[in-house]
């Protein structure tokens, strides 16, 4: 009975015409479009220009112009002293980068993908993240570790893992993950300026995507604060959290849900550590329902942390169990159909949101 009543209330709200508040509308009318690749490249260029202590290091970042062309043109502009091609020795060159940061330089170390960061993870965690604490503030480590993270297309199990939850569990690190060009520019600039070690998780499939950016975003002083999530789309029925590529999927899911009268609030986390718990909780207190979305493995993932945080802080506000959408709990398969099943799709997010809204069961069946 109660279920039918609830359906009716939601059905009534379906009648109201609600303007979709989209981020796109808030930009200036003369919006330029740039790709995420261009955004990252311009951010690196500007920060290197502004601060002579910033330098780049990684495989193929120089003469090859970057494995994914993110560092294109920077070797020509800044010279081989500041754009350094390294041998394929992650443990060695990451340690060298951290040592340079100990001395006060500001390295930006590129991992061709974050899968290879596992070879250097001791330096990221034990040499970089913990040093400021162990030295009681004497040794700070202003380093950025950046590169593509998560699944690409057809690259198989060893080249597809998402490292957000691994790095974000470690105190002393800051972990950022941009979605669009504005995020890419603002967060990378903030990361380079930040005096702490930052893990900057990009997405290969987003590099070529274009997004509109305002003049403010294009300004060389533009910076996004670390630790603040962004509400990409306002809503009132269910909160969907996501980061990186999944933000795009969540936004598309929100459009589909809107047709059913479910208005989803999409939060772009931007910062995995520090996690913007207050924005997430404020949103859940408004919508009373939560779906977390991530590409990575589900167990001990980002969604698990968000779910725990919301249960701790906003339990009384939850009207439904928290839903988690994540990558499948298997190593990434190669075959295209299996790969599709191993990564969240838009319909998965839609389905989970409907479940959270108790709308997944057709009206006839609820009695």
């Amino acid at each position: 009975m109660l279920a039918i009543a609830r359906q009716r209330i939601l059905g009534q709200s379906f009648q109201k015409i609600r303007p979709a508040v989209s981020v796109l509308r808030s930009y200036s009318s003369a919006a330029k479009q740039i790709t995420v690749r261009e955004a990252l490249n311009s951010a690196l260029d500007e920060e290197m220009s502004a601060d002579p202590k910033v330098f780049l290091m990684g495989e193929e970042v120089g003469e090859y112009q970057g494995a994914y062309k993110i560092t294109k043109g920077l070797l020509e502009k800044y010279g081989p002293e500041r754009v350094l091609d390294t041998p394929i020795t992650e443990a060695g060159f990451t340690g060298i980068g951290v040592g340079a940061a100990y001395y006060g330089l500001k390295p930006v170390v590129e991992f061709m993908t974050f899968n290879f960061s596992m070879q250097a993870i001791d330096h990221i965690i034990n040499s970089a993240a913990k040093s400021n604490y162990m030295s009681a503030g004497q040794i700070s480590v202003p380093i950025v570790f950046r590169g593509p993270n998560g699944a690409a297309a057809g690259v198989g199990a060893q080249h597809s893992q998402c490292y957000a939850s691994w790095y974000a569990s470690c105190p002393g690190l800051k972990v950022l993950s941009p979605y669009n060009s504005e995020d890419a520019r603002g967060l990378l600039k903030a990361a380079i300026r930040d005096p702490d070690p930052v893990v900057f998780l990009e997405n290969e499939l987003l590099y070529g995507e274009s997004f509109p950016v305002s003049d403010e975003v294009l300004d060389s002083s533009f910076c996004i604060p670390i630790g603040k999530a962004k509400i990409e789309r306002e809503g009132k029925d269910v909160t969907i959290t996501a980061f990186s590529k999944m933000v795009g999927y969540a936004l598309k899911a929100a459009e589909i849900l809107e047709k059913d009268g479910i208005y989803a609030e999409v939060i772009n986390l931007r910062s995995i550590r520090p996690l913007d718990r207050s924005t997430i909780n404020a949103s859940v207190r408004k919508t009373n329902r939560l779906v977390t979305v991530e590409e990575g493995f589900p167990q001990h993932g980002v969604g698990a942390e968000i779910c725990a945080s919301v249960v701790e802080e906003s339990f009384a506000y939850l009207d439904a169990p928290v839903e988690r959408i994540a990558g499948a709990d298997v190593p990434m398969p190669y075959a295209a159909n299996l790969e599709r099943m191993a990564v969240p799709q838009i319909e998965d997010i839609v389905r989970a949101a409907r479940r959270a809204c108790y709308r997944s069961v057709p009206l006839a069946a609820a009695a």
Partner: protein
Amino acid sequence: MPTLLSAWFNSHQPNLHPPSFYSLSLFRSSHPPPSPNPTLAMALSRFASSSRSGSLLKPLSSAISLRRPISTDTTPITLETSVPFTAHQCEAPSRTVQTSANELLTFFRDMALMRRMEIAADSLYKAKLIRGFCHLYDGQEAVAVGMEAALTKKDCIITAYRDHCTFMARGGTLLEVFAELMGRQAGCSRGKGGSMHFYKKDSNFYGGHGIVGAQVPLGCGLAFAQKYSKDEAVTFALYGDGAANQGQLFEALNISALWDLPAILVCENNHYGMGTAEWRAAKSPAYYKRGDYAPGLKVDGMDVLAVKQACTFAKEHALKNGPIILEMDTYRYHGHSMSDPGSTYRTRDEITGVRQERDPIERIRKLILSHDLATEKELKDIEKEVRKEVDDAIAQAKENPVPESSELFTNVYAKGLGVESFGADRKEVRATLP
């Protein structure tokens, strides 16, 4: 299986030099020039290889009988190292070294202080005032002291976890050491680091690292930064014979050689990686050669003058030619750490043998006494002074308070952004990181 001591003897000449093998050459001296002694002149001419050799000669007998003030005399003394250096891909430096009474006595005092400090730490650990790990350096003092004598504070040093004495050599105080070991506020890391995490950034001492081998790429990174900043200084990255097999070491050396970084990799070969002797861990224990394309030098690490000479040579080399490896042949009297008795994998005879034949402090004591730079009593007084300093520092450290509870949450970040952090029960203990 050869014992350590016999292996060492087989590869080295005896280290005892009768007095006629050295020369007392006086230059820039304020003493009136005396008539030269012909025998001494001949002996001197054999060793006057340095361009600084003066023409003022003093008869040996009058030199010995002169009572000079012990702590400030900087009159140069020329000596030889215990054994010549063995070189790989480079010209070994001369085994003739310049020193002075002042320097030798400073070496003696510094090493005696370090020795006393480490032995006191042993007692504190057994009294459970020091917890966790405690890796002691007694026996290896000559490496820390000799290296420091060759460097300036602009040069960087980074080492692993056996770092108490290296920290002291870089200007740390006894109170900072003991307070840190006991987890007190006055510790060099305010009690938050512990034995393995001593740092002194204002003296370019970068720790203090618990992960075996990690400090070598970090050290090459420091050298990179020095070159990048055009500081005309070098980095000494210390590691043990156990760490010498780490892959990241070769990765860092490769990059350092490619990029011509002023990095000196110093293998403190005390012949045991924890409980594993070097011949069981390394197919090639000639660590000074393992740089392959990078030059190397094998040094008697128990001879502080040899260490100083080698480090001076290495610094000059690295500034011009890129990385070089120094292998310091040294020995630790204690086990790997306080949890290791140190006698299950080596004989007590070996330990006492090294202590009798090669102890770095005894070597300097003999040199000082045989050159009449101080009396036995004066040296004993120095040791008493040093003992008192250590005891006073321990007493002070014992009185020092433990860190405030709020310190649990400080320095997680350099810039905390007002973010929240949590204690074990997050509903009970939360903090905002500044």
